[in-house]
């Protein structure tokens, strides 16, 4: 994180943490008050009304270096915003568990890996969001992406964006890791097809290729 949340000024684009959490509280309270929520949401926009942020919020996200305007609810996760609210969608990060257990939705926030299913979209404002698409392309892959292809570090490929993102960030922090360190770095990412050994190989090969 580059600056404290209190530094944020623009109410519309920088909902403070306390405010949006209230919004989440209401939205999450569920069925019984769902109707009220929506009427409330419409009444929300009145200037000067204290605090509760609810309904739709217009924000701008910095995704892979481009400003992206999007309307979300305060409870909308960054993952959902990327996949289901941005137009056009950014679908590299995958929705697999939605509760921070699998790593398939990993993105970089200001260069650090984060589960985008655990980050609210409104909390990603003013932070640089990098998805796997922002790391390289099929024509011009980064070292990790190229090594994944070369070492067959993917099968179905659904976990792959998460692994690629995690490892790409890790190699910046530790350009010359041991196998044990790579395994440790990947412990927040699950694969089901069984690519782990080749993920490790690819990560070590990518480190080697960038070291030279």
């Amino acid at each position, binding site marked *: 994180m580059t600056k404290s949340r209190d530094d944020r000024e623009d109410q519309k684009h920088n909902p403070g943490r306390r405010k949006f959490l209230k919004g989440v509280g209401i939205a999450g309270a569920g069925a019984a008050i769902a109707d009220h929520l929506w009427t409330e949401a419409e009444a929300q926009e009145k200037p000067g009304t204290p605090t509760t942020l609810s309904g739709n919020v217009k924000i701008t996200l910095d995704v892979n270096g481009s400003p992206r305007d999007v309307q979300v609810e305060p409870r909308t996760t960054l993952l959902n915003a990327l996949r289901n609210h941005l137009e056009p969608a950014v679908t590299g*990060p995958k929705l697999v568990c939605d509760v921070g257990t699998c790593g398939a939705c990993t993105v970089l926030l200001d260069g650090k890996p984060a589960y985008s299913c655990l980050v609210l979209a409104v909390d990603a404002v003013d932070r640089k969001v990098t998805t796997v698409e922002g790391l390289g392309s099929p024509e011009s892959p980064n070292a990790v992406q190229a090594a994944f292809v070369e070492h067959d570090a993917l099968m179905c490929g659904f976990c792959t964006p998460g692994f690629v993102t995690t490892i790409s960030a890790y190699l910046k922090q530790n350009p010359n890791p041991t196998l044990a360190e*790579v395994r*440790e770095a990947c412990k927040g990412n699950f694969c089901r*097809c069984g690519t782990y050994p080749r993920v490790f190989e690819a990560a070590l090969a990518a480190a080697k290729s960038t070291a030279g």
Partner: protein
Amino acid sequence: MPRVVNGVEQMVEIEVDADSGPGWGPNDKHTLLNQRLTRVDGPLKVAGIARYTYDQRLPGMLYARVLRCPHAHARVTSVDIDAASKIPGVKAIIQAPLTEVRFAGAPVAAVAATTPEIAGDALRAIKVNYEVLPHVVHAHAAIRPDAPKVVAEENNLQEKGKNGDPQKAEAAFATADAIVEGEYISARIHHVCLETHGMVVDYRGGDTATIYASTQGTFTIAADAAKELGLTESAVTVSVEHMGGGFGSKFGLGLEGMLACRLSKQTKSPVKLMFTRYDEFVMAGNRSGSWQKLKAGVKKDGTIVALNARQYRLGGLGQGSQAGQPYIYRMGDTYREIYALHTNEDSSIAMRAPGHPQASFAVESLMDELAYKIKLDPVEFRKKNLRDEVYYRQLDRAAREIGWSRRNPIAGGNAGPLKRGLGCAVGTWGGGGNNQCKVDVTIARDGSVDVAVGTQDLGTGTRTYTRAIVAEELGLTIKDVKERIGNSKLGAANPSGGSTTAPSLSPSVKDAAIKARMLMAERVAPLLGNAKAEEIVFAGGKVSAGGQSLSWQQATASLPAAGITSHGEWRADLQARGVHGVCFAEVEVDVETGHVKPIKMVHIQDGGLPLNRLTMESQINGGMIQSLGMALWEGRVMDAHLGMMLNPGLGDYKVPGSLEMPELVPLIDDDDKREAVIGIAEGCIIPAVGALVNAVFNACGVRVRELPVTPDKILMGLSKGTQITQI
């Protein structure tokens, strides 16, 4: 060809036509096949732009969610959707076609809304009243005569077959020098496809519809979807560009597809219904559990004289699956009874080698116990009782690789609290193909080559070998050929189940490629001194004969404006059935904590002609890793009183992760000289569980007969010094 009937493979003979055309040639003479080819969809997948069903987002698309019943057995008495349907953004709410619910998680209603968040709100706003009925979710309770009935008027225990003569088996036991009797139990485990089950149904009220499906069978969906949508089958196109894992669980329209069709039809909008992870655990199926009571008698020389087996398939509402004992071994006079034992759980469905890892785990444990009892080396003991000699060389090779000579023959005999041990096991599968794939190869005048067939790539490398077969036949590189797959408007293809895809698809691709080569040869013959078509050589991007040579571009320039298209059909002589695999494992058991750490696994697998060594090795790795989960960590935990699954998430249901990975050695058995393609995906998941539990026994002397082998069972065994079975 292999057919799996109730989980037990049956042999079906195929006539081979010897004159059907050129074959593959020797396995060591290929230029692209049997090499290490990186997968052609790799660059798209690593860059995050491969489009999966879950990534589809269409204009005006609605998001659907499913409301599940929280009770294991209940009658739905009322559903109140008033509040839910008033939520802005909710477009449709439908009820699932069930009034009596027999497992916790069964669908009760489904909603479609403009965002996933609103769909979630709507679920919470639906009020359902239930009449709760008695339930039973554990096998040991369900088998009691007074247990609640899963289906009224029907016994929970259903006999499914008896084989052999019980009197003969009993008599043979009298001739045995040693007898082992045990109950082996494997937990129900989950596929955990990372892309959950789901579909996007794009029907906007017209005469046609498109369905994007996460499926193992492009051609298994349109008929049922058409019925739901009121269309003709051919008006429904199914698309499966990329899919995120199936492992046997994704065939047909399914409940998710049916509900999505109904919602789409009602709203005349595209509807996306992808299961949540919770849905996936409680509604998307699982590998059936098993409970096997085995008794075997053995002579001192290692000859097994008798087996008595009582096998229960634990498939919840379904029939379950379990291969019959003595599985692949010779055991003299055998008698077995197989039953389905029902509980209030969702039905098991096919999972990679349905019924086989369960049977293998039990019989390989039994084999190990017998070997210790008569003090024979487990490898030699297996050889003595195996029918097929291919295993002998595989056992020897893998034994060398793992360092079997290091093994302490005394279980638990190594010093210190961290005890290492070695184990082995053996597996088989069919892996033959069938006549379903229709492939077109088109060579255009500009030199481009297209191979088209509606098949699907599950991550197995189908796209890559489809291209490679054509490129090799035409003397081109992988990059010169483009494949189009995953669409029901392309040539028919079989669903990917039972390791049948490669042996069904690759002969048709080869046939089309050979025919394309011959069509080309006839066209270019006049440019090559009127050479005979069969004498024209396609190699290295050139077309040559009699000392003359054309570049590929020169050659294709002679084609008609529309290019040429060949049509390939399946050829039985290009495939075969029957694979062999052997797995060895080394583990380290901490006898103070009961923790098992896998150290190394070796799996050797034959499979005729390896289409692509790189992806084949990956599949072998995958088999070992998924087996690790089944052996050591995975298992559905059901609460007896609530009737619910207690671990329906990746935080509680432990799948193998990076920290647990042992050293993995995938070996391709190149002594298999069959010039034929055989499916290997299932073969390489079967033996590893047995190898692991046997390694645990060798390490610490505790025979854990119930999967998964968790620390509590190890510690219990160490404290009692006896076999552990808890059901």
